[in-house]
């Protein structure tokens, strides 16, 4: 059985594509952690992780996906 991947979603409450990404993960029963970039700590962290200031950012283990890129998320999760 494949090892569970660590999934983090950097998002904001008012960001529509963040909600879409979260809904997608929930629909596919993927466990994940949300880091709200309204918290300055996570706003800084997402820039360090992705080298840019656009959300959502989804990290799947060491892979960093900028934007709600469904094919890339599916591929990274193997679903």
């Amino acid at each position, binding site marked *: 059985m494949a090892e569970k991947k660590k999934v983090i979603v950097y998002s904001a409450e008012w960001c529509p594509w963040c909600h879409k990404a979260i809904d997608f993960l929930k629909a596919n029963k993927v466990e994940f952690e949300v880091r709200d970039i309204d918290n300055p700590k996570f706003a800084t962290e997402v820039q360090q992780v992705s080298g840019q*200031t*656009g959300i959502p950012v989804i990290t799947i283990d060491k892979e960093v996906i900028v934007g709600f890129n469904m094919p890339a998320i599916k591929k990274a999760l193997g679903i």
Partner: protein
Amino acid sequence: MSKMADAYDVIIVGGGVAGFSAAMYCGRLRLKTLVIAENRGGTIMLTNHVTNWPGTKAISGMDLATNIEEHAKEYNPDIVDAKAVKAEKAKEGFSVTDAEGKRYESKTLILATGTTMRKLDVPGEKELENKGVHSCALCDGVFYKEKTIAVIGGSDSAVKEALLLTQWAKKVYMIYRKEKVRAEPINLERLNANRKIEIINNTNVKELVGKGRLEKLVFDKPYKGSTEFMVDGVFVEIGRIPNSELAKQLGAKLNHKAEIVINRHAETSVPGLYACGDVADTLFKQAIVGAGEAVLASYCAYEYLQKGKKG
């Protein structure tokens, strides 16, 4: 046999307001329907408050898009999350191929492919994308709390972006190439009442400068004695480009803006091919207009199929 193996009555390309409105109505008309959607939700997702949807005083763009999609799903259309890259005439009507090479056939085709953000096309734009250069205020505005930012553009959409950004930024400049911004009167009133926004008119941005992150804009003429303008971020809202490539492949008539020309029945110049929403040559690009066109397209596709049966 999978139902995907048979030709559909209708394929709808696009997953925004127009696309799923068409899917909803095609379902009511009992048409066998496939929706091919690159991005479910579409352009309305970028609008924080929709206040012109009849019967609903205010709703977020995301909620509106989700409601319409859920309504359409009541009628069980097949949905493929993919980018449609090729459309051809086929034996029974049309075929559409997605980016993964999967091919689908239908008797009629509705294009609700929407638009793509127009780029400035100036040096620095590509390199600094999401590094100070953005196109979605709702998504990325939060990074500019108490910062100085600029919106490039002077349309109603640009004004709405500027107004939205004032909830985070300490100052928002609107940089517009013409004399007067052109927004709906209600948004102009809001703009004029907002003390955080300042308009720099008759000015073009010719370069975006920064090492790894946007630092300044370069104007085509001096503002307060300099062509260099320091900002923390910039949001580009200079219009949209219609995604009409599939219509072009099928030989449908396009106008000078590359929008798909439709008549009042949402028919294109190609029999059995319909278009609706922002990709069509409609004067007033609004969700309510796109939804109406989508219903017309659906009904006319249904009528077209009925006539074919009567033969």
